[in-house]
């Protein structure tokens, strides 16, 4: 056995499941359902842990503490996630117990010693309009026309721009927002609006903002000329959104950035 123990679980958030019961049979049945939804798909551990694209879990002589640790914390450097951040404590305990049962543990402990696994802090409550704005911010159907093409927020998006520190008061202000940090770069026969990342002795790195998505370009220091300011306007890249949608996005930003 030379393959590393790569636990490759698939997770599913928000899937409906039966109410958790302390009764062992119900408990294990629930664990099996969580397992089938989350861990048993084609690239993962297979039904009943018989191995899929990830290793077999059944009959490996794992003890429950090892299973719990691995499921909870994941395996760094692999696709095996830290499921304590993903599953509810009930689902996590149930799936750990189910995998334990696959390893001959007839009466798995329903709850880890010391209480349930720690959970992620609850997401901040958003108003309905702000929640709508959250979805719009990273609406993948807008392709490169979505805000998250250039802004990372709450773990979603590409961090081209610096973190949003203040929120425009309204849509008009958003559209008219000044962007003095965008300069003009001349490079070869090209001239482009650019967001400079670094100017080193060996290379100059900047985002070319000519057209979304921004392109991170690296050039030799002597080959590019920089001028302050540009003709680039933030309003040119938010055209996929209607007025009411931008209003919702601003509501979302206020709710998040204010924290």
């Amino acid at each position, binding site marked *: *056995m*030379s*393959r*590393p123990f*790569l636990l*490759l*679980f*698939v*997770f*599913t*958030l*928000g*899937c409906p499941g039966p109410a958790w019961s302390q009764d062992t049979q119900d408990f294990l049945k629930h664990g099996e359902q969580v397992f*089938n*939804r*989350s861990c*048993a*798909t*084609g*690239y993962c551990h*297979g*039904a*009943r842990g*018989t*191995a*899929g*694209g*990830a*290793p*077999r879990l059944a009959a490996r002589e794992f003890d429950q503490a090892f299973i719990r640790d691995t499921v909870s914390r*994941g395996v760094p*450097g*692999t*696709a*095996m*996630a830290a499921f304590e951040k*993903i599953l509810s404590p009930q689902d996590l305990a149930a799936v750990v117990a189910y995998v334990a049962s696959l390893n001959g543990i007839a009466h798995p402990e329903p709850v880890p010693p010391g209480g349930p696994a720690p959970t992620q802090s609850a997401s901040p409550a958003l108003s309905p309009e702000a929640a709508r704005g959250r979805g719009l911010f*990273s609406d*993948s*159907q807008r*392709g*490169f026309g979505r805000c*998250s*093409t250039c802004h990372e927020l709450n*773990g*979603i*998006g*590409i961090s081209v721009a610096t973190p949003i520190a203040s929120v425009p008061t309204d849509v008009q202000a958003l559209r008219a927002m000044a962007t003095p940090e965008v300069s003009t770069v001349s490079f070869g026969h*090209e001239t482009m609006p650019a967001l400079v990342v670094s100017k080193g002795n060996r*290379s100059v790195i900047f985002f*070319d903002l*000519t*057209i*979304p*998505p*921004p*392109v*991170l*370009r*690296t050039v030799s220091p002597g080959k590019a000329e920089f001028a302050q300011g540009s003709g680039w306007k933030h309003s040119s890249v938010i055209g996929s959104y209607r007025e009411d949608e931008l209003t919702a996005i601003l509501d979302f930003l206020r709710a998040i950035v204010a924290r």
Partner: protein
Amino acid sequence: MSQNLYSSRQKRSYRCFSDISCGSVPRDSKTALARFITLSAVFLLAVASAHAQDGATGADWPNYGGTPMAWRYTALKQINAANVKNLAPAWIFQTGDYAENLQATPIVIDGIMYLITARDQVFALDAATGRVIWRYEYPATKAERPGSFAGLTQNRGVAVGEGKVFFGTNDTYLVALDQKSGRELWKVSVEDPKQCGCNIYAAPLLVNDKVIVGENGSDVAHRGHLTAFHAETGRLAWRWNAIPGPGEKGHDTWKGDSWNFGGGAAWTTGSFDPQLNLVYWGTGNPAPDFYDAGRLPGTTQDRDVNLYTDCIVALDADTGKLRWYYQELPGDIMDFDSAYEIVLVDRELNGQLRKILIHVNKSGITFVLDRVTGEFLDAFSMPEVQTWMTRVAGDGRVIGRKHPEVGKTMNLCPGPAGAKSWNQIAYSPKTGLMYAPINELCADVTANNEGPQEGAFAMGAAVEMKLPPGRTSYSHLDAWDPVTGKRIWSYSYQYVLMASVLATGGDLVFTGDPEGNFFALDSRTGEKLWSYQTGAGNRGSAISYSVNGRQYIVTPTGWQQSQVGGAAAGLFPDQQWRQGSTVVVFALPEGSR
């Protein structure tokens, strides 16, 4: 623009198109006569103007599939059926990146080999010696979307041209390096892996002045794309959405909002016909794979369901506009992607040179189409065990497809690992045959009604891979005539074959197995002529090239521990298929050529 091809398929219901080799297949005499008259009329013109495009490689191996026609065939014949027994290692290069395995197709141009590893380390090597010319290491990326492709690592190759080396990354960027120095020139985010749960395994395709790439995603809830960037600047040139949005033709082939995350990822590398200026690509299955109640439109139909999943598409290379499509498995519910390689061949059919394409999807069905129009010409199925359907009709429809039911376990052959994985077939113009590695694998599939969550795996089933009963071998490398749909020979293998095939002008076919054997067969008979134990499983793509008049054959080695390779290994628990990340380069010893 797209067009409905079904009417043309109905008109052309014949199954084979060679008068010499049609055998007992019934033919409509009037159709045959009409075709004869037509062919007679165009014969002189055809002879005068026809010029078959050559998809063979020579000294270089410049593209993922050899050339953009994806034959995986070298015209080199210094190494041939008569002397291959003398083939021996010339040099070996270990990449040092042992995270997974080595699936890349090496690219060789002007005596320099460009190689990428699973974690996106790129090497330029002296192709005659293995000496490192430069090395580039992409910054380590986190598995930022666990439970999705974004947590997996793999890379199947670079594209080289325009003075640059292009590759996709595990965090879904497209990167360009300077071909001479390996310095990074530009990188651009194709998608957000934290949101889409996708990454890029596929080698990009360089077409004219643009680089085209698709991301993984049909098994995760994600809408597939093909995106073209300008090679010089990295700026966006065009994007084609595999699933039509509101107001676009084909959008009504989806139920409600299911199109949002409906899959269709174009996750391998496409082909290109420079004469037609068309790019050809295959698309993946709809998501969720095994649960379709949420995505089927209300009407019952056996064509144009969940467009453009499981399709071959032809796109204008300059604009990305859809020129035509052909849907192989409408409303697929078996995870039988059509995303695999597309082999472009100019072939004489009934005296007329036709531009055809050959495509094998994951079910193991080969489709042959006219690549100018998308017209269906032929289809045949290659696996020996198949329970998921009853037959392929003369018009290309797949009859008797099974349908998984929620909560019930159904044994399906082939299973979602497929009769063929992404590893590629080869085509030899010398024999007129295609060489396909086919696996005989089944699965117990228990569908569930799991709804798609953006960016997370959305298989819609628990899957347990199974071996078909009553067999002692579970794969075969076959030679098929794509014109007649007849198998010419078959080389049987005990386990699975998941490495690409290389055909050569020396009448040889090369591939490797998971035990580490890299071997050569006679391309005309299938007789094994040579084999070498490379030390680790073969899951990559062999190539050939020459430097200073010496021909080399290369195989990447290292078995895949995750995904389909790992799943297959689980079926043979007594086997220890070794991982690794090494290219083994063979040549005839000096004096024996």
